[in-house]
């Protein structure tokens, strides 16, 4: 069975077989990173546009490297340096870019649903690189690939996702992906940062860090945005860090010795993760970043590759 979708907008849309196909493709492509000459001709003559409406260094760079290793022509379009500063609407910008015949548009936007809107509007492939608090599918895919390689399998594993779940697109994509692949998920954080009815997505909820991390195979810590305090969601960073920060002591006291610590980055050191945990032996954070390039190569390859059997 081959890949049949035009776009990658949300993990929720995919079935387990499609997720596994992306992971397998990524696993086979990641050896390119170790080559002397990091270039394969898979997307030669294809154009990938990175359409980023929200500041991002690592995700954009990751997509850019992925495209270049596959020999695509990669163009970066950032909202700050473009006509959006002159008041052009998102739809108009998208139509203008479409008129330049790209093969894949990678979009990052602060509005939930922006990627779906773009996918509906454009004939080319659209990859969601994060839309508001909705989804960030390639992040979940790289997280799954990281766990699968470290643990050797995915089915039956348990994961705790800790922190600002309410505003996290990473959490949403991971919840869907993990549930589809047979992992059990607990989300944890202060109740003000847990979205209402989240149990209906098939997860458990914990309101104490110790309860969340006990006996799980993976702990995924989320980044705390500083503006959550002004919104009245938490009293102070100090209190948050005291209650929800993952320290070595807490880890040793409550978590399994073979637990994996993940974080989508960028890390607020000393807030959600203490430095000795972020840099310690449990941490697979840099491995996640490396897997990110492989996953994005796989996605660009599956969506942007020549259709109809002719070999790229």
């Amino acid at each position, binding site marked *: 069975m081959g890949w049949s979708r035009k776009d990658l907008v949300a993990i929720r849309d995919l079935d387990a077989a499609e997720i596994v196909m992306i992971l397998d493709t990524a696993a086979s492509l990641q050896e390119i990173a170790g080559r002397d000459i990091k270039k394969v001709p898979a997307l030669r003559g294809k154009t990938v546009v990175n359409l980023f409406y929200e500041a991002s260094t690592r995700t954009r760079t990751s997509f850019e490297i992925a495209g270049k290793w596959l020999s695509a022509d990669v163009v970066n379009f950032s909202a700050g340096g473009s006509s959006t500063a002159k008041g052009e*609407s998102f739809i108009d910008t998208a139509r203008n870019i479409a008129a330049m015949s790209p093969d894949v548009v990678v979009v990052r936007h602060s509005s939930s*649903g922006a990627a779906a809107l773009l996918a509906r509007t454009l004939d080319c492939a659209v990859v969601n690189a994060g839309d508001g608090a909705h989804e960030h599918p390639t992040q979940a895919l790289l997280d799954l690939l990281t766990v699968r390689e470290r643990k050797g399998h995915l089915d039956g594993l348990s994961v705790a996702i800790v922190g600002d779940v309410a505003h996290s697109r990473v959490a949403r994509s991971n919840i869907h992906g993990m549930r589809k692949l047979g992992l059990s998920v607990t989300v944890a954080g202060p109740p003000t940062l847990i979205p209402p*009815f989240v149990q209906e997505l098939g997860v458990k909820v914990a309101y104490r860090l110790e309860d969340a991390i006990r006996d799980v195979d993976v702990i995924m810590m989320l980044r705390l945005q500083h503006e959550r305090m002004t919104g009245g969601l938490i009293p102070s960073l100090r209190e948050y860090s005291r209650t929800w920060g993952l320290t070595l002591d807490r880890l040793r006291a409550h978590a399994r010795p073979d637990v994996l610590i993940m974080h989508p980055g960028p890390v607020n050191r000393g807030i959600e993760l203490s430095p000795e945990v972020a840099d310690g032996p449990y941490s697979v954070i840099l491995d996640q970043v490396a897997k990110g390039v492989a996953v994005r190569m796989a996605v660009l390859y599956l969506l942007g590759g020549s259709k109809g059997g002719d070999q790229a």
Partner: protein
Amino acid sequence: MSLLIRGGRVVDPANDVDGVQDVLLAGDRVERLGHGLSAAGATVIDATGKVVCPGFIDIHVHLREPGHEYKETIASGTRAAAAGGFTAVCCMANTDPVNDNRSVTDYIRARAASEGVVRVYPIGAVSRGLRGEELAELAELAEAGCVAFSDDGRCVMNAALYRRAMEYTLPFGRPLISHAEDHTLSRGAAMHEGVVSTEIGLPGAPAAAEDVMVARDILLAELTGAHVHIAHLSTAGAVRLVREARARGVKVTAEVTPHHLLLTDEAVRSYDPNTRMNPPLRAKRDVEAVLEGLAEGTIDCVATDHAPHAASEKEGEFDRAAAGIVGLETAVSLLLDRLVRPGLLPLSTLVARLSRDPARLLDLPGGSLGPGAPADVTILDLDRELTIEPARFHSRGRNTPFGGWALVGAPWKTIVGGRVAWE
């Protein structure tokens, strides 16, 4: 000139009429109802197989004029009303300039007289500039012809000011219409807070943002003895609060929109900006509760909250799109097809909630086909099949989530003041 509507099924809840009769209109008044009527020189409309009702009244529309004529005008909005079976509309004050002083009210009424094809009753602002800080000149607005007062689009968050508005307007016999929304609870929200908002990652406003304000308004109405009308009521909690308050004798009334009767927040999964409205589309239990409230009379009437916007304001990112949809040209068909045909609401109840009850609520002429009533008549064809085509609307607004819906039942003729305004 006389108009004889012959052979239709007359549904006139105000006079307990439901049966085949003729209706004779003389000039701008209803002359009489009866069997086998004839009148020399009268124009005859054969309404056999049709349903003849008192003209429908929509007490909540945005005509956008003055100031936002690119969205709608009094000319286009009243044509949309006539095409949708409405013979009268009440227009909200959030124009530019705001209808918070007599000169704006006079302007709206003058434009309606020269350009309008249905009756237009302006609603005055409660506060100057809709800022919620100081009272508008409410006595003069009432004198100029405003039939109610509302800052609709915004809630008057200042409870003391709202209490004073209630007291001050008591002598005018004109209610306040409350856009009940606690902005501190709904800040930043783009939709209803629930499992759908959690899943699709849009910021949600809890139903409690509405309930809290409905509770406040009821308590203030109780304190002052004023009549407060809850606009676009949308939650199960608000239905319960209004039901309890009415049982206690508080003067609180309410309206519901067709979209809150027919759609849930599941529709927002599409991220279609035409599913963005305020109050937002709610959960299934809320939809069930507002229908129950409408059927039993806790909710007095259906009002569309007709809110036309330009295409550019409704095509982009969901959370940046303007809130609101057009309703005048879709309401009657939607309600006939989705509520009356499946037996969820009797036809006579729907007709009452669109004519008799809104007329009583705001003390407007009409809502009845009794002798001497205004010659405002809505004739329905319950068998007409149609597909909603926004491109064919008379309204300048095309913003509706109902485009493409196939429905059975529609307005057939709209008669205003004894003249056919649309057919």
